[in-house]
């Protein structure tokens, strides 16, 4: 590891959550505009986290604090790994670990909704993980290596080689942004049958840290999506922005489908598309 990588890693550590927070802010403003509202200030997510930080509340379980920290570390680590050009597949696994810790903390809680939410979170994990992984495998195949820098150094936009993974990645972005179309119940939507699912029992500072972890996750996912057109930093930002916007529009033009639909239909379809793309890359 040279010094340059080190600087990049540190930048990833600090910037990624900030970018994620900003994405959350954009998300809320654009959502509001799509709904003909003025919406909150762009910095609103940061205020929210600041507010949560200063709240005093008893934890719902002794273990939650620990899992929250682990999740945060894992999420940040996945950012750092990307920034430092590490193996993208491992980066993905590390991020999945973060999601697992969130679910575990929810299992430890004492509200039935929290546990129900944890179960659903896991099924959601099951739905998007393979799709995402196959997407990464496609990129790796085209780039000839598994590390982030090779992805970015690929000749020309990867998109043309893997158009079929776009629906899959969009699905992942939707899930990771915690948007409808799925009733995973961790989103802001007030009408949720499992209250806030995995997040039900997290509160105060723990919840704030989870929010930061979530930002980091969103950054990673959008970042990986942006590899599809990684010819310059600008195109990467634009690609990520397009994914974000598409996700917001989908959120606003569709009803929330159940996780059974997600697992039984959306995931298989996107997975098959992505697999077809992967096989095609091999046959070429």
């Amino acid at each position: 590891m040279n010094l340059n990588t080190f600087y990049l890693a540190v930048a990833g550590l600090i910037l990624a959550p900030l970018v994620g927070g900003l994405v959350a802010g954009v998300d809320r403003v654009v959502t509001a505009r799509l709904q003909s509202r003025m919406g909150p200030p762009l910095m609103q997510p940061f205020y929210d986290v600041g507010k949560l930080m200063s709240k005093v509340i008893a934890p719902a379980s002794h273990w939650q604090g620990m899992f929250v920290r682990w999740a945060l570390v894992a999420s940040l680590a996945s950012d750092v790994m990307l920034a430092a050009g590490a193996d993208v597949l491992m980066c993905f696994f590390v991020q999945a670990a973060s999601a697992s810790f969130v679910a575990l903390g929810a299992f430890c809680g004492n509200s039935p909704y929290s546990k129900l939410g944890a179960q659903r979170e896991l099924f959601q994990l099951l739905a998007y993980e393979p799709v995402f992984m196959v997407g990464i495998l496609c990129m790796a195949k085209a780039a000839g290596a598994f590390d982030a820098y090779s992805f970015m150094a690929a000749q020309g936009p990867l998109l043309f080689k893997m158009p079929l993974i776009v629906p899959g990645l969009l699905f992942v972005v939707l899930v990771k942004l915690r948007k409808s179309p799925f009733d995973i119940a961790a989103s802001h939507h007030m009408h949720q049958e499992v209250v806030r699912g995995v997040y039900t029992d997290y509160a105060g500072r723990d919840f704030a840290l989870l929010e930061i972890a979530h930002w980091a996750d969103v950054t990673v996912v959008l970042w990986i999506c942006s590899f599809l057109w990684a010819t310059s930093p600008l195109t990467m930002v634009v690609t990520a922005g397009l994914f974000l916007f598409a996700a917001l529009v989908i959120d606003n033009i569709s009803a929330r489908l159940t996780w059974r639909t997600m697992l039984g239909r959306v995931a298989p379809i996107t997975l098959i598309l992505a697999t077809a793309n992967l096989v095609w890359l091999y046959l070429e």
Partner: protein
Amino acid sequence: MKMLPTVISNLFGKAATRNYPFYVRDNFEHARGELINDIEKCIFCGTCSRKCPSQCLTVTKDKTEGTWALEFFACVGCGVCVDVCPVNCLSQKTSHRPVAVERAVITMTGKLPERPAKKDKPAE
């Protein structure tokens, strides 16, 4: 998918939001808002207090002075009292009553009219 045109036109159109409190729309002419009493005109007959469905008005009087008290936290703004007041001293503003941080009762006192009508019984 069917919602797409609406959503997109929302995005590029003007937001429907009225930026209250920075922009306050004029109240409608007949809006039933805050109840006020022109206490100078009040004869403390107590009709309003008897007809009020929420029983939030208390009218008392002694020889010279009358008191008209409104428990405004219980007033439902129906305007019945306004309708029944024989001297039309009650009216409703068009604006809503401001929020409060403490419980209170609005109490107004006024002089009794020179010659109170003889049918007037003291209100409880």
